[in-house]
C-alpha cells in the first residue's frame, strides 16, 4: 500500500506502520514480487529459487501436491519465515526482516485459527483494534465485512457455535476487513465438505471480485485452483514448473508432471521418427501400435525418446475407421462408467495402456465393454514431453 494510492477502499490502511516510508512507484509495479527465494530445511531446499509476480486485483493460486513447498512460500510472504536467499517485495518494498504484524498482508488459515474466546465481531475487529483504529470506525467496518460474507446477525456468537462454512466466512472477513494489500489463503476450503466447498468457491470468487482483493491462494485441488484463479503456478519438489492462466496450464502443460497433476493424461511412451510434411512421426514403445504424426518443435532429432499425452475430452470414439486425416489408434472398451452428466470409458490401447475418454449428454454414443473402437484426435491437441 502506498500513501499516494488513490483507491478509497485502501484508505484505512494508512494507519499501518508499514507504509511509514511510503514511496511512489509506477502504477504498473506488481503488488507482490517474489525474487528467487530459497528456503532450506537442513540440506533439503523446501523452496528452490521460486520467482513470481502478482498484479493488483489478481487471484493467483499456487497449486501442487502436499510437500511441494507451497505453504512455505505463503509463510514467507506472510512473514512467519524468512527466505534463506532471494527477496520478497510487497508494493515495491522488501519485506525481509519485517515481522508479520508489520506486513500489509493477512492470512486466512487452513484451520481458520479463529480465537475461541472472542465473538465473531471481536474476531473480525481484532486486526483493526491492534492497529488502534477508532472504535466507531471499527464497528462500521466490521459490519461492512460481515455483510459481505453474509454473517449479519451472528456477531455475538462464539466460533464454536458456528458451522464449518460460517467459520470459514469469519476467517475471510477477519482478513479482508483490514483491507490488506494481499489476502493470503492457505487451503481455504479444504476443511469443508464437497457441496459446501463448491458453493464457497463461487462465493469466494465473487467476494474477491467485488472487493477488488488481491489474493494468493495455496491449494492442492486443481479444479478449485482453475475455477477461482486468474493465474496458476504449479509447484512440485520446491520448484515452480509453470505459471499461466488456467487454460494455458491445462491445455499447454510444459512438463509431464504438470499435465498429470492438472487432469487425466492419456499417455504413450515411445520415440520420435522421421519428419512428414508439417508433422513428425511418433513410434510408440508398444510395437503392436502403429506410428502416428505428432506436432513437435522445429528440428527435433528423430530417435529421441519421448512421452506423448492427450486429454480425455480431446478423444473421439467411433465404431468404424474414420476417413478424415486426423491421427487414429484402435482400442477396445474395457469399462463403461456412468457418472450422471457424463459417461467415462476406460479403453485398452495396445498391450498395457488404459486410456480414458468422455462422452456427455445427448451425444453419448452407446458402447459396451468389449466393443472395438477407433480413437481419433486433432493433430494439434497431442503433446510431446521429453524427460
Amino acid at each position: 500500500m502506498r500513501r499516494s494510492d488513490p483507491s478509497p477502499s485502501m484508505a484505512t490502511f494508512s494507519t499501518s506502520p508499514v507504509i511509514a516510508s511510503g514511496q511512489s512507484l509506477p502504477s504498473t509495479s506488481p503488488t507482490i514480487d517474489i525474487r528467487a527465494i530459497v528456503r532450506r530445511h537442513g540440506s533439503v531446499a523446501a523452496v528452490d529459487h521460486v520467482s513470481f509476480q502478482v498484479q493488483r486485483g489478481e487471484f493467483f493460486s499456487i497449486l501442487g501436491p502436499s510437500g511441494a513447498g507451497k505453504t512455505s512460500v505463503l509463510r514467507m510472504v506472510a512473514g512467519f519465515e524468512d527466505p534463506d536467499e532471494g527477496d520478497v517485495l510487497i508494493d515495491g518494498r522488501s519485506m525481509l526482516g519485517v515481522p508479520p504484524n508489520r506486513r500489509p498482508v493477512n492470512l486466512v488459515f487452513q484451520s481458520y485459527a479463529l480465537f475461541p474466546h472472542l465473538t465473531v465481531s471481536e474476531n473480525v475487529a481484532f486486526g483493526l483494534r491492534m492497529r488502534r483504529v477508532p472504535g466507531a470506525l471499527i464497528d462500521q467496518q466490521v459490519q461492512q465485512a460481515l455483510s459481505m460474507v453474509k454473517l449479519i446477525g451472528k456477531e455475538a456468537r462464539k466460533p464454536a457455535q458456528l458451522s464449518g462454512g460460517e467459520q470459514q466466512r469469519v476467517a475471510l472477513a477477519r482478513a479482508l476487513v483490514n483491507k490488506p494489500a494481499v489476502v493470503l489463503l492457505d487451503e481455504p476450503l479444504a476443511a469443508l465438505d464437497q457441496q459446501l466447498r463448491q458453493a464457497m468457491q463461487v462465493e469466494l470468487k465473487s467476494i474477491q471480485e467485488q472487493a477488488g482483493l488481491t489474493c494468493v491462494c495455496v491449494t492442492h485441488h486443481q479444479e478449485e485452483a482453475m475455477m477461482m484463479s486468474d493465474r496458476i503456478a504449479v509447484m512440485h519438489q520446491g520448484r515452480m514448473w509453470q505459471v499461466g492462466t488456467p487454460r494455458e496450464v491445462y491445455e499447454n502443460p510444459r512438463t509431464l508432471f504438470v499435465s498429470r497433476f492438472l487432469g487425466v493424461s492419456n499417455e504413450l511412451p515411445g520415440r520420435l521418427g522421421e519428419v512428414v510434411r508439417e508433422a513428425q512421426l511418433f513410434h510408440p514403445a508398444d510395437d503392436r501400435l502403429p506410428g502416428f504424426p505428432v506436432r513437435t518443435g522445429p528440428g527435433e532429432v528423430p530417435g529421441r525418446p519421448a512421452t506423448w499425452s492427450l486429454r480425455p475430452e480431446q478423444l473421439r470414439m467411433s465404431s468404424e475407421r474414420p476417413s478424415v486425416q486426423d491421427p487414429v489408434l484402435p482400442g477396445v472398451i474395457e469399462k463403461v462408467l456412468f457418472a450422471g452428466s457424463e459417461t467415462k470409458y476406460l479403453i485398452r490401447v495396445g498391450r498395457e495402456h488404459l486410456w480414458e475418454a468422455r462422452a456427455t449428454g445427448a451425444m453419448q454414443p452407446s458402447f459396451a465393454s468389449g466393443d472395438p473402437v477407433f480413437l481419433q484426435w486433432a493433430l494439434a491437441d497431442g503433446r510431446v514431453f521429453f524427460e
Partner: protein
Amino acid sequence: MPSDDVSRSSPSVRASCRSCWLAAPGLLWMALFFLVPLLLVFAISFASRGTYGGIVWEFTWANYLDLLHPLYGKILGQSLWYATLTTAICFVLGFPLAYVIARSPARWQPVLLLLVMLPFWTNFLVRTYAWMIMLRHDGLANNLLLALGLIAEPLELLYTPTAVVIGLVYGYLPFMVLPLYVAVERLDPVLVEAAWDLYASRWAVFTRVVVPLTMPGIVGGCILVFIPSIGSFITPDLLGGARSMMIGNLIQHEYLVVRDWPLGSAVSFVLMAIVMAAVFVYYRQASSADGPLEGR
C-alpha cells in the same frame, strides 16, 4: 457409608455393591485420624486456656478476637504478602519455562517435565538447607554478586524476608509449571500466528490471546503455588528470622512454645479458611473452564 443407598439402587448394583465395603476400613481410618482431629482443633479454638496450659471447655470468641491484635495481624498480613509475591515470581519464571517445554519436540517434553518435577520429590528440608548454604554471608550468592561487581560488601541475605520468598519460589515453582504446561500444550500455535498476522505486537499476542486461552492453567498454577506457600513452616523457620514469621510458625509457636492451644487452634482455622477459599476458586475455575472453550 455405602450401605444407605442400597435401597435406592438397581438390583444389579445392589448385588455387586458388596465390593463397596472394601473402602470401609480406609475411610474409617481417615475419619478417625483426619476428620476427628480437625473437629477437635475446631472445638478447641472456641475454648479457653487454663492457668497451667490446659484447656477449659467454656465457649468463647476470645481466641479469634485476639487475632485482631496487631502482633498477630502483622504475621497474617506478611504471610499473605510472601505467598502472593511467591506466586507472582513463580508465574514470571514458570510461564516461559512451561511455554518452551510445551513447544519443544514431543519426545523431549516428558524428559523436560521430569527435570522440572525431580527437585520437588527430594527432601524439602534438604532443599531448604541448600539455600542456607547459598545465602550465607560467605555463600555462593554473595560471592557471585561480589565477583560481578554488583555489590561491594556481602549482603545479609539469610534470615530475611528475601530469603523466605526465594525458598518458597524454589520449593513450589514445579507446581506452577505443570498446569501451565498443560494449558499451553492445548493452545493451538496457529492462533498465536493468526494474532501476529493481524498486527498484534508480541505483548498484544501474549495479553490478548495467550493469557485468555491459558487462563485455566494460570489460575490452577497460581492456586497450587499459593496454597502450600501460605501454609509453609520449614522455609520461614530455616531461612527467615524472627521478623519474617509466617502463619505456620505462629501455630507451632502457640502450640509448642507458649502452649496456648486454643489460640493456636484459632490460628489454624484462619489458615484453613484461607486455603479453602483458594481451593474453592480453583474448583470454580476448573468447572467453568470447560464451557466456552469446548468443541474447539
